[in-house]
């Protein structure tokens, strides 16, 4: 057990995995992950090659180069950095490169802000990457370790980004169970890459120009990778649990089995939400929580099954997607539920933008709100903003 923050937990995982190359460009606060790794290397605690590059755009480009050469590569970024990578994220996933990236989820400018917000990752939700979100430092550590195994699986070969909420990545020190190096190495067991640009005996053209004759088939083939990851994410989560006694799936349910009302959200706010559920349960309220861990691929079937028997649910997005009806989590949840025979009422909420607090009271109010809505002719389905000053 170590008392560390989320950044250090991720760095610790990377030290144990020992990728061939780590690529670095500074963003707040993800650079703290990379600084820790740099100091591990400087002190001889790990021997990965560490490359300081000129931009986030170059960082992802260099990741593409390493991974296309059969190498294991890690980088970390946040906010503006992830936005600058946007173009290359699509290339990495299209070339089926198993890159792993840590994201300290942070708001996108303007105005510039360093705090927890999912607008950076959510803006990349169609980039073809697997997206995993962590509630706390322990989950960040565990998710990074699982990410390599998922990304490198021969049926998947798709890059993975692992998010942790910015504020909690560097302000909150928590107890983290760190496995031994041997345990991690045994778990990882990297398979051979499917191609290498350094294989000079077998020349390859990678990243061709493609006409309408083939493009569609290429994209559908690419999609098979992330579709295959549905099973692999489950298997890896189970294997991880069997070995280390911390089990992972697409999402975590909390007192949901007999619940009538539930909150759906991702990442750090789940801690507060669990506490709120406990408090309300004490008062006899049948409430529960679903914390989504895997946003891409979106587990629509499993999510639908878990939620269909509820009376009403509140979906909380920590991102503003201007001009849409609710945030991405709300929209995806609605889509997952709509074709089911039995489904709850679904209410959209936006919270926590740019690190705005969400408290116990707020979540209790949300429960009251959706309960009232259900009992009172379904209520108001307009988007509600939590803890927003009038």
């Amino acid at each position, binding site marked *: 057990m170590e008392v560390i923050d989320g950044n250090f937990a991720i760095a610790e995982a990377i030290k144990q995995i020992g990728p061939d190359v780590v690529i670095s460009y500074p963003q707040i606060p993800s650079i703290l992950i990379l600084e820790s790794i740099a100091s591990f290397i400087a002190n001889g605690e790990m021997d990965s090659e560490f*490359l300081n*590059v000129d931009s986030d755009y*170059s960082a992802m480009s*260099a990741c593409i*180069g*390493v*991974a296309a050469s059969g190498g294991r590569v890690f980088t970390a970024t946040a906010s503006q950095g992830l936005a600058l990578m946007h*173009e290359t994220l699509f290339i990495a996933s299209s070339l089926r490169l198993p890159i792993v990236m840590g994201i300290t989820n942070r708001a996108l400018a303007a105005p510039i802000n360093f705090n927890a917000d999912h607008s950076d990752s959510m803006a990349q939700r169609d980039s073809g990457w697997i997206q995993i979100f962590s509630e706390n430092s322990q989950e960040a550590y565990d998710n990074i370790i699982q990410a390599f195994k998922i990304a490198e699986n021969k049926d998947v070969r798709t890059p993975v980004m692992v998010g942790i909420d910015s504020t909690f990545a560097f302000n909150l020190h928590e107890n983290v169970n760190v496995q031994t190096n041997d345990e991690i190495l045994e778990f990882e067991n990297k398979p051979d890459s499917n191609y290498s640009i350094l294989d000079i005996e077998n020349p390859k*053209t*990678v990243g061709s120009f493609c006409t309408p004759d083939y493009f569609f088939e290429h994209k559908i083939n690419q999609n098979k990778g992330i579709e295959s990851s549905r099973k692999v994410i489950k298997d890896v989560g189970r294997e991880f649990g069997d070995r280390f006694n911390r089990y992972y799936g697409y999402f975590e349910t909390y007192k949901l089995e007999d619940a009538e009302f539930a909150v759906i959200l991702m990442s750090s706010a789940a801690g507060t939400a669990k506490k709120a559920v406990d408090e309300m349960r004490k008062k006899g309220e049948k409430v529960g929580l679903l914390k989504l861990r895997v946003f891409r691929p979106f587990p629509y079937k499993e999510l639908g099954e878990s939620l269909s028997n509820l009376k009403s649910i509140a979906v909380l997005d920590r991102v503003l997607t201007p001009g849409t009806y609710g945030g991405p989590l709300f929209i995806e949840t609605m889509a997952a539920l709509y074709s089911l025979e039995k489904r709850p009422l679904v209410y959209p909420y936006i919270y926590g933008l740019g690190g705005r607090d969400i408290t116990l009271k707020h979540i209790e109010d949300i429960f009251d709100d959706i309960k009232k809505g259900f009992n009172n002719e379904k209520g108001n389905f307009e988007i509600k903003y939590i803890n927003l000053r009038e």
Partner: protein
Amino acid sequence: MITLKELTNKEDLFVSGHGLCPGCGIPVILKLVLRATEYPIVISNATGCLQVASTEFPATSWKLNWIHSSLGNAASTISGIETMYRVLKKQGKLQTDTEIKFLAIVGDGGTNDIGLSSLSGAIERGHDFVYLCYDNQSYANSGGQRSSASPIGTSTSTTPTGKVLPGKLQYKKDITKIIAAHKLPYVAQTAPWNWEDLYTKAKKAFDIEGPAYLNVLNPCPKEWKIPSNKSIELTRIAADTCVWPLYEIEAGKNININYKPENKLPVTEWLKRQNRFKHLLNVENRWIVDEIQNVIDQNWKCLLKQEKRGINN
């Protein structure tokens, strides 16, 4: 020195079937550059004419390992590849005993504009690779827009000549000198009219350890608006007018000028052969031509001086 005949006997690693325009300089440049090392080459090619014309799926003109990522990141992509090569070598896991050479191939837009940070970073980090810029002085692949490598006065699709504007109003970036300011082991400017110069510089660039930069004038019949059978010849006029001097800079110190025209021609000899400059020969644009001539003369004088004294004096 190798003979042209010996060169032609070497295997072609960039083969026919590609869709580059008749008269385009790229295939000529490539045939020389790819023959300039005995070692296998891994290429990172930026988006552009070459990439699009040589890799239309499922065909390819490349008989070597080639990767394309995007327009602005060929240098950072090759950085990753070259780093992984060093890692595998260190780990003893490289599948081959032979040394591998790394080559980034990028047009002038990808070099001077969108990829400049990526290129500068890769050079600063000291990766062992050759960067080849084929400079056709415009974004030819997307239809001939202005780049910061387009010369002043050029009529391009985004700086067209009109009733009030005479084409591009700014000077071309001196990218060779900008790169040389990184004080990297080797920088050279060359052109396909002089195969020996181009081949020798490419060979030096491959042989030298660390980053090397080649800036090659690439004639573009489509955007220069010239007959396709005049393209290579025109690059010689670029040298004879001192529009495109052939020179090299070693370790950021010594400049060698590799070609000094016996009769330095006036810039009008360069301008009048290309329809992209046609409007400059009108009387009202005479001042632009005078300016261009003035700048060329100054640059040439400066180069001669630098050759004598070293670039830093």
